[in-house]
């Protein structure tokens, strides 16, 4: 018999399978513009999920998450240009490793002294430094951006896949993003994830169970940053261009919006939030100015009416109709 404490792997795998199947079938039915939006959305889902690993799971508020997305992207672009013969998978992995290394260095300094709003503002300041650096550093293209990032040929030993052809890169992004999301899911539901959740709830209490609070916070920060750096690396060839805007603080606000919009306490919250945001953006893309007004108003309405996010709102609606006993069970994840 499965314990109520076990991870809901069957349910989540089923949901994931359906979503991935639909996304993989997209190019068959959807126009090119929409396929592009969905590919970007997949990367933004990774972006949102990794941020929420820090916030919803561990209790760390980062305002500078976009800088890791940008760093991963520029790192891959630079490596791919400098070493054209390097296997692209090594390039993507390298971007992740670079993101992790940078996060460890920053985390060792920043997490030691400051938490809460200070950590948020500190990450904001650091991301501004990254943004200014990318905007002014000539080898990275300054304001014009890093141009001509190619979609590579994937040499898998037995066969080769040219990601530049047809929808190949789109399919590659969907599959790779799924892998990254699975990593986040696994961390979240592992023993480490449970320790992180304890830290989010009450760090001092967790320490008195022998949990290394600082070490686990650093771990969450490093994993989230590394995963996001890989998503950023995948984004460069998708757009074939990177501008400093990917490091701008308004992009750092995105994973926060996704998570709070969808609900921070469930794994699927940021997924729902990112999808909802993408739909809004796609639906209003032709309305100059009014697009921001509509998106902003809907965000405001969600915050004021459903402070638990979309999924939290649905949950409480469902609970209102459920019996108290089954409601108690539903609250467990």
């Amino acid at each position, binding site marked *: 018999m499965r314990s109520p404490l076990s991870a809901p792997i069957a349910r989540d795998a089923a949901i994931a399978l359906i979503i991935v199947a639909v996304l993989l079938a997209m190019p068959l039915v959807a126009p090119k513009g929409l396929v592009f939006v969905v590919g970007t959305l997949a990367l933004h889902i990774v972006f949102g999920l990794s941020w929420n690993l820090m916030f919803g799971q561990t209790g760390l508020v980062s305002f500078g998450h976009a800088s890791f997305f940008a760093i991963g992207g520029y790192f891959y672009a630079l490596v791919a240009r400098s070493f054209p013969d390097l296997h692209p998978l090594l390039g993507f992995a390298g971007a992740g490793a670079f993101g992790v290394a940078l996060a460890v260095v920053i985390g060792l*300094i920043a997490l030691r002294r400051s938490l809460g709003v200070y950590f948020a503002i500190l990450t904001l300041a650091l991301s501004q430094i990254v943004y200014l650096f990318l905007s002014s550093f000539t080898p990275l293209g300054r304001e014009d951006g890093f141009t001509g990032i190619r979609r590579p040929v994937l040499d898998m030993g037995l066969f080769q896949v040219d990601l530049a052809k047809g929808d190949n890169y789109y399919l590659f992004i969907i599959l790779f993003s799924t892998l990254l999301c699975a990593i986040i899911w696994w961390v979240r539901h592992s023993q480490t994830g449970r320790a992180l959740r304890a830290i989010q709830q009450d760090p001092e209490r967790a320490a008195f169970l022998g949990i290394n609070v600082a070490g686990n916070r650093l771990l969450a920060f490093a994993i989230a940053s590394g995963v996001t750096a890989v998503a950023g690396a995948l984004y460069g060839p998708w757009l074939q261009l990177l501008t400093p805007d990917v490091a701008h603080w308004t992009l750092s606000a995105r994973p926060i919006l996704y998570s709070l919009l969808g609900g921070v306490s469930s794994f699927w919250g940021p997924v729902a939030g990112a999808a909802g945001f993408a739909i809004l953006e796609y639906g209003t893309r032709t309305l100059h100015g009014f697009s921001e007004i509509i998106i902003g108003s809907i965000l405001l309405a969600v915050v004021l009416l459903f402070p638990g996010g979309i999924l939290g709102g649905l949950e409480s609606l469902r609970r209102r109709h459920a019996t108290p006993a089954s409601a108690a069970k539903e609250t467990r994840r």
Partner: protein
Amino acid sequence: MVDYVLSPLFNGLFMAMVVFLFTTGLTLIFGILRVLNFAHGGFFMIGAYVAFSIVRLVGGETSVLAYLAISTVAGIVVGLLGLVVERVIFRPLQKVDEAYSLIATYALLLITEGAVKAVWGVSFHSVATPDLLGGAVFAGDLFMPTYAIFIIAIGVASYALLEWVLQHTDTGKLMKSVASDPWMAGMLGVNVPRFYTFIVVLGFFLAGIAGGLLLPNQTLSPNLASTFVIQAFGALIVGGMGNIRGTFLAAIMLCVIDSFGSLLFSEVPGLFFYIAMTAALLLRPQGLIAGARL
């Protein structure tokens, strides 16, 4: 001497007062309502656009007096918007988690950006400096634009005024007591909700008037909202979570360091502001003026 000391010092002070004027309203609202208002930049921008429209309407009138009057009108318009925002958004936000109030003010920022695009379009605009302030003063070899001197004077005067109001008037004492313990203030008969309305309107008025005053310094575009916000957050937090004196000192410290830093490393303008901000947060996480509210 002039090139390496006085000139960067002067430029740093000028930037500091620009940041300070931008930040006063933000500090006031954060200090009392504990709402970190992302949309502050948006309302600053609306103030600047309103002033721009009036200048165009009256046919490019550029006397100093008209410029001050126009800025005040911009402040009043934005203050009235603040009245609406407080009723519709800030008041319900008192009940939700801090993280959600942050997302709400960000949503509001998006709305202001959209509104500016819808009303004024996306093209760039600029306004001439009033005639009297268009010149420059030379002190020895030090070149000082009159407009910069004027902004420094306005910044220092605003600080002195706010400090005087806070320390020596009943309104100021009320502000401090509500900031430190709204529940107790309510017990003692203060109408706290109405006081919050007053603070929000005042904060927005300050955003609007700053938008008008700093108009000649800016190129108007819908991106204006997000350019100052992060620097303002820096001054606010480094200063010590919402007190006017801390914000004033932090703005000066960060901007002057940045100004000297750009001498050493001119490739990345603005870099040293954030380096100083990072260092300040790490070395003094409690802020320059710790513990004090307003």
